[in-house]
């Protein structure tokens, strides 16, 4: 994995308007996200439902128009593209959906579903399309013989493989996996996750892996972004985030991962209350209403997104304590080497 950014987000916002009487209010689904997605990495995006994960994924793919901010892909600002150029750009970015059946057109045969993007992007040679579809089916672990059947004749796992084949047939570099395995049985989840990892290796793909399941993200991803109420609260490598979670929300999430060992006790951090409404997010730090380490000014000061150690970003007013501890640790290490 290189650290060369493929996609850069700069203060990206997505607000959905809704009317209350004569007033127009906004649901701030994504409210100022700045981050880079590196080439060939798998970036996990976690958070509870309603925090804006899926919206962010769709905004990056321009399936939803953003309200504000800038998205660049390969250094090209997507806003500057003309419609025809945007269609070309879409070859490079695809999406895999949560519900495998709903994502396949029930009136088309599997072959038609997979070749539709090819046809649309000017692969006019019928033979070539047939070959590419067959090749894609083999790649995702299905037999080319099934190409003339309809989607409802398959199991969930097979349907998801068809969805993956459709996403990959244009040879994209970037794929948003929107809860790609959460609708599947656990045993099938593992198969599909392994397939996704294999494909990533074979085709050099970049994933934005949206999930609410930290164990899945831990299995697949290199870096993890934790989202809360439209903002990224912590972004770090998988190792950093599991070893040193800084943000209180991240710590609560990690403590909620079940441990498959009945003897081992885990300390769960139970968050109080519900996620506040994104139409009217709390002042200051958005998490202060549920935070167990809330300080005096957390309800007034919006925390900056700071780098607490290389590649580890946190947005929390109380993270200074962590930085201090880390510097003390480093200092003691260097002292001990002096002695």
């Amino acid at each position, binding site marked *: 994995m290189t650290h060369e950014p493929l996609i850069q987000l700069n203060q990206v916002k997505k607000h959905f308007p809704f009317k209350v009487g004569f007033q127009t209010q906004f649901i701030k689904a994504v409210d100022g996200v700045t981050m880079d997605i590196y080439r060939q990495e798998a970036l996990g995006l976690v958070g509870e439902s309603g925090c804006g994960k899926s919206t962010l994924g769709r905004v990056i793919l321009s399936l939803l128009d953003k309200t504000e901010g800038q998205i660049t892909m390969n250094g090209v600002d997507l806003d500057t593209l003309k419609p025809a150029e945007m*269609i070309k750009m879409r070859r490079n970015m695809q999406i895999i959906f949560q519900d495998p059946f*709903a994502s396949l057109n*029930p009136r088309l045969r599997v072959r038609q579903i997979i070749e539709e993007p090819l046809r649309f*992007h000017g692969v006019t040679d019928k033979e070539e399309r047939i070959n590419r579809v067959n090749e894609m089916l083999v790649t995702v672990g299905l037999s080319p013989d099934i190409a003339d059947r309809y989607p409802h004749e398959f199991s969930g796992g097979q349907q998801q493989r068809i969805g993956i084949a459709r996403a990959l047939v244009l040879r994209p570099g970037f794929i948003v996996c929107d809860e790609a395995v959460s609708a599947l049985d656990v045993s099938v989840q593992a198969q599909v996750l392994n397939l996704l990892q294999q494909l990533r290796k074979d085709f050099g793909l970049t994933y934005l892996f949206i999930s609410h399941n930290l164990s899945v993200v831990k299995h697949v991803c290199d870096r993890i972004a934790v989202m809360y109420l439209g903002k990224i609260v912590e972004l770090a490598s998988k190792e950093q985030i599991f070893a040193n979670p800084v943000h209180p929300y991240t710590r609560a999430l990690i403590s909620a991962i079940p441990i498959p060992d009945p003897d081992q006790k885990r300390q769960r951090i139970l968050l109080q209350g519900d996620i506040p409404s994104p139409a009217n997010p709390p002042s200051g730090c958005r998490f202060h209403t549920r935070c167990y380490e809330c300080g005096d000014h957390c309800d007034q000061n919006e925390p900056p997104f700071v780098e607490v150690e290389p590649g580890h970003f946190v947005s929390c007013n109380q993270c200074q304590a962590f930085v201090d501890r880390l510097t003390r640790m480093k200092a003691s290490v260097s002292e001990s080497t002096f002695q």
Partner: protein
Amino acid sequence: MKKKTIRFTTIFALTIVSAAILMALFPSLFTQYDPLELDMSNKLQGPSAAHWLGTDEYGRDLWSRIVFGARISISVGFGAAALAMLLGVPLGLLAGFVGKTTDSIIMRIMDAFMSFPSVLLAILLITIFEPSALTLIFTISIVSFPAYGRIVRSSVLSLKEREFVEAARAFGAKRGYLLFRTILPNCASAIIVQFSLFAASSILIEASMSFLGLGIQPPAPAWGSMLSYAKTYINQSVTYILVPSAAIFLVVLAINLLGDALREWLDPMKLK
């Protein structure tokens, strides 16, 4: 595993509907009597070998009048449903797909048409134009196309949020492609099923208009007007009022059953 079974009701419905359509197309194949031929010596008779279903107050053969009357019922029923489809489907597609202001404008116009009482509109149109099958088709489709539009609109609204439509957007499909290649084929079955239901209800509306004298004018045979004249003679001949009632009942029931069968038959889960 999946055996295609055709139910008895479907066969029944198909037989009745196809018979009615054949009568409408080639009425003279089904009867030797002229529906307008008077025979005062044989008026208001019950069923006999010569007149299968009996005769009316002028001695005209009832079976022959039913056969020739089928042309009006079938052409008005299917014609009005077709015209309503032609008006309602594009407007419903447009309203559902474009949404926002376009949707509001189209829906309010449809509401206005929907709130028009059909009988009043028919009286109006018949005073302006001739009372003919065409006028009836026009009247019925004007009052029923908004319902068609609403059905199409609501299925477009639900389809356009589906993930396979989003998947098509993700590979760059434009609005026209999404609407006609992705969404329309998926509401086609709803449109076809609605067509049959609208045909059935149009036949009923036609019958009630003819009953009120707003439809085809005598002596031309129409099931609704036959019913209207027969009610005067209910004490002399029971078959006279039963025959047109049964004709209307059977055809409307059969078309409705056919609609149900179509709905099942066009279900995408049954695709093979």
